């Protein structure tokens, strides 16, 4: 797969090579044709799709990191990084749409916009897009953080001023870019779910989600909400790790 003319760099995710042979897990349906690519053939194959998205994100991530390094050295930011971000979106969301369409075919009229999201590096998280742009009406929000903070947050709750996003299906890199997180602290490796419905029932006012602006050299653009009060641990659950 090519991204902006750059070959995907193997190694980040250690993706196994794709075989041209039909995958045993592919649902060939009525076509009985050899499957070269699950996406091209329009045939749902979970295993092959996972490999494809992993390879796509691997390439996009490698390319983006190279551009960030380039930015630091030559001050080339932001146009080339924005292109890399777009490439990441194209592949990631395109794949999710593919997954969703296939699921719709098999399951009826459900669609991505009803809250079906495909697995990401953080695993499968429902609620994507169903809550996009919301906040006040959303049932849950997500906090991308670090594993070392999870036990403390689960025990003490979250401090006032903490952030969350309605989108729980971002990869660590996407979260970093979309939510404009500081570049020097590494990629988040943990995901927490905040029970907005529970908070609402308990009498808390849920803050509106707003678009994250550019910060720390990250373009932002994702939705975020900032809680002006401490969140009790009863309303927080670790999704990952």
């Amino acid at each position, binding site marked *: 797969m090519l991204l902006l003319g750059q070959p995907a760099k193997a190694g980040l995710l250690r993706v196994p090579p794709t075989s041209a042979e039909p995958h045993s897990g592919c649902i060939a349906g009525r076509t009985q044709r050899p499957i070269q690519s699950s996406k091209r053939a329009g045939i749902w194959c979970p295993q092959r799709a996972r490999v494809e998205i992993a390879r796509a994100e691997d390439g996009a991530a490698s390319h983006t990191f190279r551009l960030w390094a380039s930015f630091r050295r030559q001050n080339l930011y932001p146009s080339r990084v924005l292109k890399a971000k777009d490439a990441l979106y194209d592949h990631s969301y395109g794949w999710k749409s593919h997954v969703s369409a296939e699921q719709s075919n098999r399951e009826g009229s459900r669609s991505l916009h009803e809250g079906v999201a495909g697995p990401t590096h953080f695993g499968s998280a429902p609620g994507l897009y169903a809550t996009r742009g919301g906040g006040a009406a959303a049932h849950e929000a997500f906090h991308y953080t670090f594993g070392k*903070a999870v036990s403390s947050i689960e025990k003490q709750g979250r401090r006032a001023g903490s952030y969350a996003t309605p989108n729980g299906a971002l990869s660590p890199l996407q979260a970093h870019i979309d939510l*404009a997180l500081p570049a020097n602290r590494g990629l988040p490796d943990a995901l927490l779910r905040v029970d907005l419905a529970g*908070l609402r029932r308990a009498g808390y006012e849920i803050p509106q989600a707003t678009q994250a602006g550019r910060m720390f050299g990250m373009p932002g653009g994702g939705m975020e909400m900032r809680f002006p*009060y*401490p969140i009790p641990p009863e309303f927080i659950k670790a999704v990952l790790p």
Partner: protein
Amino acid sequence: MKLGEIRSQMVAFRLSVDEEARALKDSYLALDRLHQLYRRFDVNEREMAEQVLTEWALSMDENVRFDALALIDDFKIASAVPALQTLLAHLASATSPGAPYEIKKVARIIAGMQPMVKA
């Protein structure tokens, strides 16, 4: 160092890390830094710091209380138990949405330190 100096140092430090956490979108950072500050204190300074944390635990500001409770819980500051019991009484009449959950938290912290208090 005297109690007044420790108190003002801790207040200033808390405000500083609070601002930093807000700027970096990482609320956990403030708590982490407060833990680091407490660990840096020597024995005498810790005694005074514990007194300051006890004052914070009775603060009207729930954000200040949050930090105090986290430190008291994590470092098992048994000398704060009487203040926590006072806080429980105050919270019982509070009407804020967070009061019931804070009561649970304070009760859990007190229960966790009962063996230390008895000893």
